[in-house]
Each structure stands twice: as C-alpha cells, then as structure tokens.
C-alpha cells in the first residue's frame, strides 16, 4: 500500500530469519559463507528442476477448475531433488550434526525467501492497492523456515548409518510428507475450498506437526548414544 506497508511485510518476513541466525549460535561459527553456499546450491537445484519440468511435463490442456491430480502429483515428485540438494550441502560441510542441519536449512530458506518474495513485495506491497496477500506471504515464509529446518533434520537422519531399524519407517514417512506437503496443501484447498487465512492456518499446523515429529526423532537419535 505504501512504503510503510512494504516495510511491515519485509520485517515480518525477514526478522525471524535474522533472529534464528543470531540465536542459534551460528554467528560464532563463522558460518555465513557456508549459508551462502547452501543458498547457491538452492538456486542450482531450482534451475535443474525447472529445466526438467519444462522438458518432460506437457502443459495441462484440460478444463479450467478441474484439478489435475496425477499431473500435480508427478510434478511434486520432482521436488525430491530438494532433498538431494540438502543432502549435498550437508555432506560437504564439516562440523557437528546440529550445526550442519542449521547451516543448510538457514541458507536454503534464506535463498528461497530472497528469490521468491523480494519482487512481489517490492512491486505489490509498495503500490497504492492494499491486499492481505502480502502479509500472508510473510507468514508463509516464516512457516517455510520451520519447514526447511525440519526437512534438513530428516534428511540428515535418513543418511545416518547408525539409524536404528525402528526409525527407518517414521523417517521415510516424514520425508515423504515433507516433499509432498505442497501437493497436500493444494489438495486441501481444492477439495475443502479453504479461504486464504484458513489455508495458512492449516499449513502452519501441518508444518508444526512435521517439525515436532522430526524433532522428537532427532532428540531420540542423538541422545540414544
């Protein structure tokens, strides 16, 4: 709506990242450069995904309003590349487990924030027209931060050689949920015709659930040794 509103949205979106960075003690580890590297990997992975999608997936020519479940499901499967990217980042980093996760997640999430939110905020939030969607986008970016931390933790756990057999299944399920979360959200919105604020709430609840489960598993794993 105005520059003030732009400032509001940006602070709502960026400050949690800043706070997380400061409070997780990453600054003492001089991990800024590593976060940037993780961000660069994010860009590379997104580029590959886009090329892959553009080449192999035809455009949907069906009726408007009919949700192409199978097509979207296949597209979501491509998001497995995200997991590979996170794994790549973490394997190249030396250091303790927790900090590897945090570095990878912070870098990844910040890159996503900058790439996907900057332009809409600059163009849209600064205009005369007011729309609630910019505030919603900022909340959404907060939720993504939590989501990426959880995802990085799950990927890390998956690749551990000393993962107990009983954990394999929950970890795999969580991994699947992480990848298909976007798809599930769209499914919910379409089937239950949720409003935008309700959808945001559902997303927050879903992400919270995933992250709690992964935290639980993480704690159990780390402190069972």
């Amino acid at each position, binding site marked *: 709506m105005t520059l*003030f509103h732009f400032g509001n949205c940006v602070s709502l979106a960026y400050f949690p990242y800043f*706070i997380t960075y400061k409070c997780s003690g990453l600054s003492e580890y001089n991990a800024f450069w590593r976060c940037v590297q993780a961000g660069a990997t994010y860009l590379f992975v997104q580029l590959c995904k886009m090329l892959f999608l553009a080449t192999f997936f035809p455009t949907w020519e069906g009726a408007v309003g009919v949700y192409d479940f199978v097509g979207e499901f296949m597209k979501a499967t491509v998001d497995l590349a995200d997991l590979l990217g996170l794994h790549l980042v973490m394997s190249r980093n030396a250091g303790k487990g927790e900090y590897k996760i945090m570095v990878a997640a912070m870098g990844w999430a910040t890159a996503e924030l900058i790439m996907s939110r900057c*332009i809409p905020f600059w163009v849209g939030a600064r205009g005369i027209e007011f729309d609630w969607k910019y505030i919603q986008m900022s909340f959404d970016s907060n939720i993504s931060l939590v989501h990426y931390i959880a995802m990085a933790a799950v990927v890390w756990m998956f690749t551990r050689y000393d993962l107990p057999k009983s954990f394999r299944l929950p970890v795999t399920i969580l991994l699947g949920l992480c990848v298909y979360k976007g798809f599930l959200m769209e499914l919910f919105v379409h089937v239950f015709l949720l409003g935008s604020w309700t959808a945001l709430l559902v997303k927050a609840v879903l992400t919270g659930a995933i992250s709690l489960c992964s935290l639980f598993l993480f704690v159990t794993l780390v402190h069972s040794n």
Partner: protein
Amino acid sequence: MFEEASEVLENMLKWSLPLSLVLFLVLLRAEAAHEFSVYRMQQYDLQGQTYGSRNAILNTEARTVEAEVLSRRCVMMRLADFSYEKYQKALQQSAGAVVIILPQNMSTMPQDIVQQFMELEPELLATETIVPVYFALEDEELLSIYTQTQISSSSQGSSSAAEVLLHTATANGFQMVTSGAQSKAVSDWAITSLEGRLTGAGEDLPTIVLVAHYDSFGVAPWLSYGADSNGSGVAILLELARLFSRLYSYKRSHAGRYNLLFFLSGGGKFNYQGTKRWLEDNLDHTDSSLLQDNVAFVLCLDTLGNSDNLYLHVSKPPKEGSPQHILLKELETVVAHQHPELKFSMVHKKINLADDTLAWEHERFGIRRLPAFTLSHLESHRSPARHSIMDKRSVSSSLEGAGEATAGPHVDLTKLSRNTKVIAETLARVIYNLTEKGVSGDLEIFTEQMQVQEDQLASLLDWLTAQPRAAQLLDKDSSIVHTLEYYLNHYLKDVKRHLVRADKRDPEFVFYDQLKQTMNAYRVKPAIFDLLLAFCIASYLGVLYLAIQNFGLLYSFLRRVTSPRVKQH
C-alpha cells in the same frame, strides 16, 4: 559478521548490482481493484461563453453524498438517487470530483427518474465548474465499490473509539485515479458538412434544399447517441435522397422542374456552425451557387422519429402564392387525406437574435433571407429530448412490443417511416405540381417499387446509433463522415465536403479533449491501519524472539521424555 558479509556480497554481486538496480527501479503498476471507463461531462466554449466541467484529472478518495466531509473527495452518485440538490451540495463543499453511475440498460429505470435527469442535463452544463464530472456505466464490481463506500461514508462520526479502531481494520477505502492528463483545447478541429444534388430537367430551375444535422448532443459526449435527435432526421434525409434519385432517373417520370440540394450539416448542436459557414461560403464567396439563384424553400429535418404530432416551424408565415405556401398546403393535403391520425400544425416563432443560440436550423437560413422551415415532432426547441444522453436506440425491443412505455426518447420505426412517406409525398406533389394538375390528395406515389423501405431506415438508424456522434468526436477522417459521403455519392451528383474551422483570433467554438478516461479504483487502508499492523508485527516478533531464545527448554523437555525409555533398554 557484517565485515565478512560485505566481503562476500561484494565479490558475488559486483557484476549483478547494476542489473538488480535496474530491476528494482522498474516501477510496475500495481493492479487495481477495478478498472473502468469513464466519460467526462461536456467541456466547450461557444461564442466566448464557457460551458461544462473544466478539469479532467483526479486522484482522490471516494465518498458518497451521505458522508459529512466531502471536500477534496470524489463523490459517487447513482442515477436512481441523483438529484440537483445533492449535486449542488457536493460542489459547494468543494468536492474533488463527481462520478455519476448510470445503469447499463436505461429501460430498467422508471420514467420519472429519466425525465428528471433529462431536464437536469442543460442545468448541469450551464453551471461552469472546475470540478471534473464523470459518468460511468454500472457493472457488478462498480456497484459493490459503491455500496462499500456508502456503508463507510454513512457510518462516519457516529461510533466510539473501539468501533472506529475495528472499522479501520476491516473496512476498505477506495482511491479513484484517472490516468490521463489535464484537458486542453483542441486546436484546429474541422467540422465537416456534406452536400449533394439532383439536377432537374431544364434551365434556370428553382432549388429545394433539404437539410439535416448529423451530430448529437448530451451531457457527456461519449454517451450521446442521438437516436431521435437527430438520427431520425439523417435517416429520413438519406432515404429521401434514395427515393428522389430513383424518381429523377426513372425514364418515364423524368426529372422534376426543381433542383434538389441535400445538405448534411455538422456542428448542428453547437448553434448550427456547419450551416452558418456553408451559407457564408456559398452566398458571399463564390460566384455562382445553387443557393444564390432561385431558392424555392429550405426544409430542415429535426427529430422526426416518434409521436403522432408534426409541427412546421417558421420564422415568418408564408405569403399566399409563394412556394413556401404551396408546401404548407401540400403538407396539409397529404396529412388530411393519407394519414388522418397525424396532427399537423404550423408554429410561428420570430428569430430572436439576442438569444445565446438559435432555436431551429431554419433560422440560419432565415437570417440570410432564404425562406426556410423546420419539420419536427417536437413543439418547442427547448425540449430536453433534443440534447439528452437518454436518447438511445432502444435496447430492449422485446419490452416495446408488450406496450410498456420505454423510458426516455427513442425512435418508433413505423412512425419514422410514416413521416418519411409524408415528406416524400409532399415534396413530390410540389415538384411535379400535382395539385394544379388536379391529382387528388389520395394518390400515393411512393408505393410498390418506390416504397419507403422500413428495413433501410432501420439499418441506417442502427448504424447511426451504434457509436456516439458528438461533434467533438467526428473529425473529417471519422468513419461516420466517410460512410455518409459514400452513401450520398451512390445516389447524388456533385457530392462535396465542406469544412468549418474555428477562427483563430475570435473562435466561435472551442472543443476540449480528454473526454474519455480509464479510471482505476484502488483499495486502500487508512494510515492508522499501517501503524496498527506495525504494532502487531512488532509484538509477534517479540514473542518469536522469546520463543527462539527459550527453544532450549523444549529441547530438554523432549530429551527428558525420551531418555527414560532409552535408559530402560
């Protein structure tokens, strides 16, 4: 942290900084809540007198009339609630702009509202105002914008602080912005008139001149379709051209003993500028012209599309034995014998040169001592039907058949074709001198192949009313002028254009531009809302900070939950 950050950023972004700057500087326009076309009220100068709205740009918040503070706001009104008092109130409180919302389909409006608006149109124009006045056609989104504005306007100043606070969080204000520039005078506008002739058989024949002005007038130029006034006049003139050209070229009847001169004049609603200049050029500046020689009479056609009345307006009652008197008598004969349902009478009105504008077109000819009449179904030249935006080709023809009175002036096709026939028969009797030859008043000449074609009239009228025909919109290259010229060329000889340009130093007429704009309605929130939001965000961030600081608590809690189980293994 900031030192290494700056190092890294410098290295990485050195090459991309110019690019990103360019990207950030591109100020793309935000999408509006609603974008719609608005049509400005007339703005013109006639003989030094200014009329209409002087301003075109606006960038103000919307309010409706119920609000207390109207100054520097855009006041929105619907036609159904429109009244002159409300309009005056808005102007007196120095409103920023006025937008009047008209329904898409006028036939949904009751008769009295349409009638009242038609009578107000000249008053709206007479008060010169610096406030831009726009007209918009209503659609669903505009209606919702109006209702929302109305709700917020009427609830101002009546509630407690808490209600106001809640109100600011939930209500939507609208900012109305037009995209164009300030209006300025159009220089060198050329009003076009067209003439064509049919030559009679013989030498030194008298001339009958048939005139109709083809432009229309209303409170907003882009909404003036002028179906009855003067689309009907033009349609009749063109149909007469067709019939008489057939008659004149028909070998068995031969051409009559009169020359026929057809004239479609432009700028008619602006005090007949086209006719005035044409007369000056033909009588003062050329050596020989049909107008200088023997002119029997001039018949002007103005608003003939409806009703069972017919009036012949004269400025001097015709003398016995003159061609004008013959016309009058023939008209009475034809009406009496062939169309008794028609009520015909002569109206005598002296030319009053002290008036701002002339009453009828024949007065222009009268001033130059040419005998002239105007034929119309309106009794007075001041009738609002002559300059109203409500004068449209009726859209809902299905309603007409049910016998309901359609709101506003409109054209009744059967009556139009009947009037055409009356005029054609009368002219034929004059040209071929039928009464003297003893032909009875019952004989109809225009029958069978020579019939007045109603379909032709209908299609002409549909074409004429398909686009607005205000004089400011028809320059010499417009499609209407070209099509009229083409049509005349098909039936008449010597079709010529005649241009009128306003005098440089002392212009008789000045037109202004920016008559049609795109208005954007942006949803805005008051400034308080931003502060409120900032406060909420600050508190949210504070809570988040505390939560992250104390994350360790959650961690140790989970650890305590899991560790007893581990210890048991």
